[in-house]
């Protein structure tokens, strides 16, 4: 019932978990992602930023098997990931979506239970016959799902319909649902889009808490403050190419980033450095 990765001590950075090599994605004549390489190590929070249309989500979709990359490989724990979303999740990489994609007509608890799918085995006949094994597995799944709802602060809403949740809680539910597959790596696609500062702050705490469970995180964001507070390393994607990667100073001071993406020197981001240290 615990996570599949051997939990590394919370803040130390471990061996490479996700290894992306030279991924290129072309749609007809359009190259959306061009030769991007990236690694995420155990226990790390890595950020991916870039202007609109830079190919961030396309890159994500290549990682999670939704798209088959034209070139390049994605491997997780040393094994090449097959380009099928369900096999990627099975291997231990879970994701959330930029435009929330919950199962709206299912309850909050059921949404998380669906996330347990890969970690349970009960098939059709087991469900019809309802032997003791079935009841045990269902109870265990429920238990784990409730734990995750507790963890994300949604326990009180377990029996509500997912589509009736307020926006911020829908985001949380997506994360809880992804965590239910016991991932070693969690991919978050703009987890704070549309959130107010308080909600963003809560999301930040949640991401740190997930990292403390020993789950590595790769996050796409627009919110500079959020990403620099959060990430150990940040990569910048512009027009499908990774132009720089490093800690926040490296990224903030990089000429190409400033010209291509930020447009002007970053004052707001530097002023939040102290907060970032407090948070960690």
């Amino acid at each position: 019932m615990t996570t599949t990765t051997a939990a590394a001590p919370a803040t130390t950075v471990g061996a490479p978990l996700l290894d992306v090599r030279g991924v290129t994605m072309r749609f007809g004549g359009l190259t959306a992602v061009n030769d991007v390489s990236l690694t995420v190590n155990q226990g790390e929070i890595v950020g991916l930023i870039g202007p609109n249309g830079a190919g961030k989500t396309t890159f994500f979709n290549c990682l999670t098997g939704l798209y088959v990359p034209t070139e390049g490989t994605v491997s997780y724990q040393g094994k090449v990931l097959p380009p099928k979303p369900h096999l990627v999740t099975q291997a231990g990489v879970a994701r959330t979506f930029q435009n929330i994609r919950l199962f709206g007509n299912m309850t909050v608890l059921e949404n998380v239970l669906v996330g347990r799918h890969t970690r349970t085995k009960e098939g059709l006949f087991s469900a019809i016959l309802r032997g003791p094994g079935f009841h045990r597995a269902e109870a265990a799944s429920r238990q784990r799902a409730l734990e995750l709802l507790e963890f994300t602060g949604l326990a009180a809403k377990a029996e509500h319909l997912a589509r009736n949740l307020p926006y911020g809680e829908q985001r949380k539910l997506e994360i809880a649902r992804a965590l239910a597959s016991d991932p070693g790596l969690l991919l978050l696609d703009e987890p704070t889009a549309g959130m107010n500062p308080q909600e963003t702050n809560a999301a930040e705490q949640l991401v740190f808490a997930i990292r403390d469970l020993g789950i590595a995180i790769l996050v796409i964001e627009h919110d500079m403050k959020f990403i620099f507070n959060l990430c150990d390393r940040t990569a910048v994607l512009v027009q499908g190419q990774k132009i720089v990667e490093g800690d926040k100073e490296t990224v903030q001071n990089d000429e190409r980033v400033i010209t291509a993406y930020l447009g002007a020197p970053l004052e707001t981001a530097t002023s939040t450095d102290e907060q970032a240290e407090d948070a960690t």
Partner: protein
Amino acid sequence: MSTETTPVIPLPLGAARAVTAVGALATTASAFLAWTWTADFPGDLTVTGYPGGLQWLTLTAGLLTLVLALASYGVPGLRWTSPSGSDNGLLYAAFGGAAVTWFTIIAIAIDLNGLANLEPGGWIAGVASLVALVGALGLPVDRHPKGTSWGLRLAKTDQPLPTARQLPSTVEVLLIVVAFAIGLFAITFGIDTEYGELFTGYLILAGFVIAALSKSGLLPRLRALTIKHRPIATGAAFAAAAGFPFTQTSDQYTSVAANILIFATVALGLNIVVGLAGLLDLGYVAFLGVGAYAAALVSGSPASPIHVQFPFWAAMLTGAAASMVFGVLIGAPTLRLRGDYLAIVTLGFGEIFRITMNNLNGTTGPKITNGANGIPRIPDLEILGFNLGQKHLIAGVELGRFSNYYLLMLVVTAFVVLVFARVGNSRIGRAWVAIREDETAAEAMGINGFRLKLLAFALGACLAGLAGTVQAHVSYTVTPDQYTFAEALPPNSAFLLAAVILGGMGTISGPLVGATLLFLVPKKLEFLSNYQLLAFGITLIILMRVRPEGMIANRRAKLEFHEADIPAQASPPSESALTKTGA
């Protein structure tokens, strides 16, 4: 809550209650009067002192209105009939009384040419029911505020009910049993109606009574009880269903009932495919046909080219397996596709099946199915020495051929209900619903969409095949024309789909209720002769406009306690039309 509690007609509360109660009492009493002078109108409404035919319906409505009116007064001992404390239920009951009474009056006028054929009793009934209705309209009912919609603006009474009084569980069980006995009586009454007027009146009244009981809070109470005692409630439901043949004196209506069960069971199987997994199957009846043909071929019928006679259990397995094989053959290539392609391929498969069965007659193809003549003279089943074709005396009641098959079919239905309930509430069922809701997200949760869709498709096919094996024996003959896309009578693919969607997708009782209605309505509306199908089509459109979510809303839809609170349609109206589904 964005509702207000105001009367439709401004009347003082006391006067409104009194008028309602008096009107209801008078309506009840008027059912005992003579309404017309001649027995030419079916049901003989000429007798004073005893109700007949449609008068029974008026009597029922009058009594229900009276009881609810007294409960509204707070008469001790009757308050339990209106746990919600809302007068909306009373209003619906009064509406029902007026509707069924005036329907009768109009039917008399039309059948006998003119209102002159009405005796004073009929006029009294008409006026009394209207008085009750006027009184009820003067009661404060829960309504939407002005400007939000039109007409009476009646609101759903969506406040949670006050907590029920704690009853000993034996009493609760007894209540469930009584409720199901009443249900059996009501359904038996509907199936046994002998003339169209009575059936139409019955449908009108049933609609209003159900509305009245659910607004008064009685049905929600009963639902809570059945959820609490689920095994007993399920048992009571099946006991009530099994009791049906014992209420019948001839096989006339048991054959109807047996066919309803077949239709309903297949609809429930389709609900796995459409309601749970969200796959639009327009050729589902072909799987019933595959099962029926398979069973007919191994039944020992002299017309079958295979001269074998399997025991019934083996024939059932053959039929189910044959259907499943076809399900996989159709599903494997098409379920990889998204969108509505499955719909057209299944529609095509349904047609191919029918045409092929027609063609395998020895001249346009190999001689297997006898073409359009079908496989006749399918022998009756014999299970453990019990010949289903013969009459048997059970518990002092003589059960005929169709009663036997009805009971056999009930076992099959029970099995399908069990499968649906258990699989629906399991890892597999959740995965199906997830695929229906958002296939991409479901795959991202580790669900192998293709495999699970194929599983749903194959299971659905298998269950339909199972029902088909019984159907072959019930109807003696299988012919290709029994398995068309759209025909005047069920079962056919269009009616099956209609039963599922009309009844309520993803529920168990929905398709059962939907199938029963879709079977009975065309059959009972035979008095409309030429206009029967026309009336059916219009009913379909109206029902869909009134309740697009189906008559029995999904358990999940019921979770929307706060529907009224959500700002009017948070999502753009076109969204659901474009929702990506795995269909």
